[in-house]
């Protein structure tokens, strides 16, 4: 369903026609290799002579390591070496990196690939084995005898703050940091707004821990060149460029000797946006032994050793005037960091800090504070949406609570609060500028597609006292906030990296085009989408474009793929590099056609003289002229190639409204999704087929947090959901088909008008589903259901309200 069809238009920068290929549902060029088994994931690579690494992991959540006896393991067949942290201490030039010191006084315990004195979560690596086969390595790892002194586990982040059990002795506290964002038009405005409010709500939500569960577990292979000193690291990673820099720093290897390659990568969802112990161990040990070393993660190991997501306790308070218009927002968060700070662990809750007012027009009355706390569980870090789903959940759930207080329909309360279309570009309370949006249009489209009034009418007849199945409808309106940039803003947040992206566009002599991008796809279809951008800019067919990526020797500059940044940063960089190539080609064309550059039009792959279109020179001819260099303007370098590093002027602000209709069985607690409507606006869609795929996957992941998923720990700190038999990643039969719509509000901050779409579905879905579940049960006195809204949790909630005297 399309509101605004993108007609071809003229790009004011290059004069090229855009929109010829952009906007088409081009099938993905990535697919044949993936569909036929040709694609090579890291674990598929044949690497002769490689030793296998296996880790000895702590079975205790919190324990002192008293002794380690490796003698039995060393003696086993196939075992080459067994190492403890002490054995390897000299190999590390620096601890494992945390790139986001959110405050100056943030506490960050030194974290090495193997722990030496204490294990701080189940899965913490205490020793490792190198052997000639994977089976031998794993068998020997089980034979390493570690004597532990078990200590009390800390699995409740709120209790952890009491410091009754301190996890990292050297820090003296479990608190890592407190990060505040208080914005007031005048001092005291927040307190005044709450004092003067006609309505207030105060809500507490728990974002349960999630396991990212990319279908490909992690895999690593380090291949050294013993006589040259170079090292090639193959890893199932989203971030080969960041990994290259961090490998050089943590191991003290000259950066120019490190090459990182991400082969086919089987999903990431943020969990492969990290620098992991196993990557560093493989590199260090392959250099030490002078042979390749590889490791691949089993699923159960993945549940322990790969970062977890979400894990926040949220307190949110809203103040509103008599019409329900928001006047202030106050948020207190506790972020469960897990046992250590991984690459961007402490920054994840902060990424949501600006979004607790949602898509609503809030005066400067915002009081946010987040405390990060250590627990004895696997470290948390980025998981699809990273801070923004949590923020959106809190505001969208509490907007429903406010609607109940005000006594208006949740959609009506949202209408009264949306930032108006005419207010864009909108300067938010925080000082951030939101680029473009039309929230009301998206919401009205979603309401129509979901038959919102019809469902409300059916509720009146269906949700009568004693009804076994109750109908609920839930709304959520969201911002995605992506393309984390510009670099200066990231600096103000103390994020260690920049927000730019690099692109090189190289025209080959036969007018085929090589694009080198710093983005690193793992399912997003960048090769297809980037070729479409180039095709439009250069007037060639997408088939004439090859996209090279994910190898730091081929694409040395880049900041990789996460945070829905690839298109609004990396894609725009490619368009800009095309412009530079066209500019140079224009000089050659003008020289050879003996006219002024400004007299030339460029369209459909050909330069022509304005007013006399028969005087034309196809780009293909210029490409060959640039290659032979026989007749170029004085001083012009041969060949057509341009590199651009683009640092966007702003974040991009995709938005939309999702509506979910559910039926809840009050006897079993089972939630059935009857309809799910997602209306998303990611600006201009390069390839609607891929956009829809991103939304589908994101929505089901968000819906899955609402209904199915939870990493369950017992009080001793043991993860109870370590396999796909225990952790409910839904199958096809567990989830509904989806109904998608979209609006197109181009971003004014980049020439393509694009915004990004990778996380939108995940952000919009969780609150839409939970609002529907609570709506279904609201007539029974239910005001909240803890996620996941499993039959058990729903049933338990119903039991507790009926015990409190709620009517049925």
């Amino acid at each position, binding site marked *: 369903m399309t509101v605004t069809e993108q007609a071809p238009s003229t790009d004011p920068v290059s004069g090229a026609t855009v929109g010829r290929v952009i906007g088409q549902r081009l*099938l*993905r060029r*990535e*697919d*044949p*290799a*993936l*569909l*036929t*088994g*040709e*694609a*090579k*994931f890291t*674990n*598929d690579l*044949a690497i002769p002579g490689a030793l296998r690494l296996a880790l000895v992991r702590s079975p205790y959540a919190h324990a002192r390591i008293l002794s380690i006896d490796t003698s039995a393991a060393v003696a086993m067949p196939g075992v080459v070496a067994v190492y403890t942290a002490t054995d390897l201490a000299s190999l590390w030039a620096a601890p494992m990196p945390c790139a986001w010191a959110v405050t100056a006084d943030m506490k960050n315990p030194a974290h090495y690939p193997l722990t030496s004195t204490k294990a701080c979560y189940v899965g913490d690596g205490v020793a490792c084995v190198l052997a000639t086969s994977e089976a031998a390595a794993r068998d020997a790892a089980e034979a390493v005898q570690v004597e532990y002194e078990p200590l009390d586990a800390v699995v409740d982040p709120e209790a952890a703050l009491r410091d009754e059990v301190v996890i990292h002795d050297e820090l003296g506290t479990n608190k890592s940091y407190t990060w505040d964002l208080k914005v007031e038009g005048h001092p005291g405005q927040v307190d005044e707004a709450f004092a003067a409010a006609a309505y207030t709500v105060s809500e507490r939500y728990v974002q349960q821990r999630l396991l990212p*569960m*990319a*279908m*490909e*577990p992690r895999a690593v292979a380090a291949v050294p060149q013993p006589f040259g000193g170079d090292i090639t690291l193959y890893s199932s990673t989203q971030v080969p460029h960041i990994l290259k820099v961090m490998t050089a720093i943590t191991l003290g290897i000259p950066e120019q000797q490190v090459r990182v390659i991400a082969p*086919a*990568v*089987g*999903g990431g*969802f943020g969990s492969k946006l990290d620098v992991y112990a196993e990557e560093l161990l493989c590199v260090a040990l392959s250099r030490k032994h002078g042979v390749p070393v590889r490791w691949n993660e*089993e*699923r*159960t190991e993945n549940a322990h050793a790969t970062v977890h997501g979400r894990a926040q306790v949220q307190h949110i308070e809203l103040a509103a005037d008599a019409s329900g218009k928001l006047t202030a927002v106050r948020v207190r968060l506790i972020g469960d960091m897990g046992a250590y700070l991984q690459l961007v662990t402490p920054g994840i809750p902060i990424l949501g800090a600006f979004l607790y007012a949602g898509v609503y027009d809030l005066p400067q009355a915002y009081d946010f504070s987040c405390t990060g706390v250590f627990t004895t569980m696997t470290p948390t870090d980025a998981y699809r949406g990273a801070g923004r789903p949590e923020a959106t959940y809190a505001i969208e759930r509490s907007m429903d609570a406010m609607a109940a207080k005000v006594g208006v329909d949740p959609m009506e309360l949202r209408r009264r609060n949306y930032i108006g279309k005419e207010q864009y570009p909108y300067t938010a309370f925080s000082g951030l500028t939101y680029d473009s949006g039309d929230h009301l249009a998206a919401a009205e489209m979603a309401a129509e597609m979901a038959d919102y009034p019809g469902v409300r009418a059916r509720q009146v007849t269906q949700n009568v006292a004693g009804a076994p199945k109750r109908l609920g409808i839930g709304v959520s309106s969201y911002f995605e906030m992506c393309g984390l940039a510009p670099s200066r803003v990231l600096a103000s947040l103390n994020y260690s990296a920049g927000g730019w992206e690099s692109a090189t566009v190289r025209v080959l002599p036969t007018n085929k085009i090589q694009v080198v991008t710093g983005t690193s796809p*793992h*399912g*997003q*279809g960048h090769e297809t989408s980037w070729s479409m951008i180039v095709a439009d800019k250069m007037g060639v067919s997408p088939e004439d474009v090859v996209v090279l990526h994910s190898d730091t020797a081929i694409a040395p500059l880049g900041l990789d793929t996460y945070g829905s940044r690839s298109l609004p940063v990396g894609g725009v960089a490619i368009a800009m590099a095309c412009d530079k190539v066209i500019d140079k080609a224009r000089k050659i064309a003008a020289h050879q056609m003996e006219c002024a550059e400004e007299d030339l039009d460029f369209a459909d792959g050909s330069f022509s003289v304005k007013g006399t279109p028969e005087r034309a020179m196809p780009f293909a001819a210029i490409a060959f002229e640039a290659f032979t260099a026989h007749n170029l303007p004085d001083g012009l370098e041969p060949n057509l190639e341009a590199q651009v590093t683009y640092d966007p002027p702003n974040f991009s602000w995709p938005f939309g409204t999702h509506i979910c209709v559910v039926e809840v069985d009050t006897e079993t607690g089972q939630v059935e999704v009857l309809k799910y409507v997602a209306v998303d606006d990611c600006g201009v869609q390069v390839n609607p*087929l*891929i956009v*829809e*795929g991103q939304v*589908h*996957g*994101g*929505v*089901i*992941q968000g819906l899955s947090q609402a209904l199915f998923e939870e990493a369950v720990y017992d009080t001793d700190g043991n993860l109870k959901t370590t*396999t*796909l*038999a225990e952790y409910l*990643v839904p*199958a*096809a*039969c567990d*989830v509904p*088909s*989806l109904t998608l719509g979209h609006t197109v509000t181009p971003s004014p901050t980049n020439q393509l008008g694009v915004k990004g779409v990778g996380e939108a*579905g995940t952000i919009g879905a969780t609150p839409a589903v939970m609002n529907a579940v609570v709506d279904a049960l609201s007539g029974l006195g239910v005001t909240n259901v803890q996620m996941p809204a499993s039959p058990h949790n729903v049933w338990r909630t119903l039991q507790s309200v009926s015990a409190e005297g709620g009517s049925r």
Partner: protein
Amino acid sequence: MMCTDRGHTAHSCNKGADVQIHVTVNGTVHESEVEPRRLLVHYVREDLGLTGTNVGCDTSSCGACSVHLDGEAVKSCTVLAVQADGCEVTTIEGLAVDGVMSAMQRAFMENHGLQCGYCTPGMVMAATSLLREVPDPTEREVREGLEGNLCRCTGYHNIVKAVLACAAGN
């Protein structure tokens, strides 16, 4: 090594002793010596180099390793290589004929039924087998029929669409 004979009676099972098997994989006959404990997935991936079949879990939950054993989808992590003795095995590499993808492979491509592609080989094998059993399934039958195969990227919407399109001959 502990050795348990899980229903396979054709071979004696001595500690560590390799067993001779004859398996036809993607039309080619292989005579191999395998450890009795060797899983079919490791046999095709490591001994035959057919790495299209992926491993996504260790509890037979995800289905990424699905192959056809005598025409029927099985999770190759749950079958011993010795159990495939005398059988025909088809892996994802065996679906395309003369460089032309099968109807199911094409349907997945045309309906954007894959993203990262890791679950895809197993999903395609399971879907192909499903349509052999139920040639004209309803959406519900497709969703139930693919219950043993997990995908984290697509939300299944386009996978279901692809299988239905393939069944309809589109």
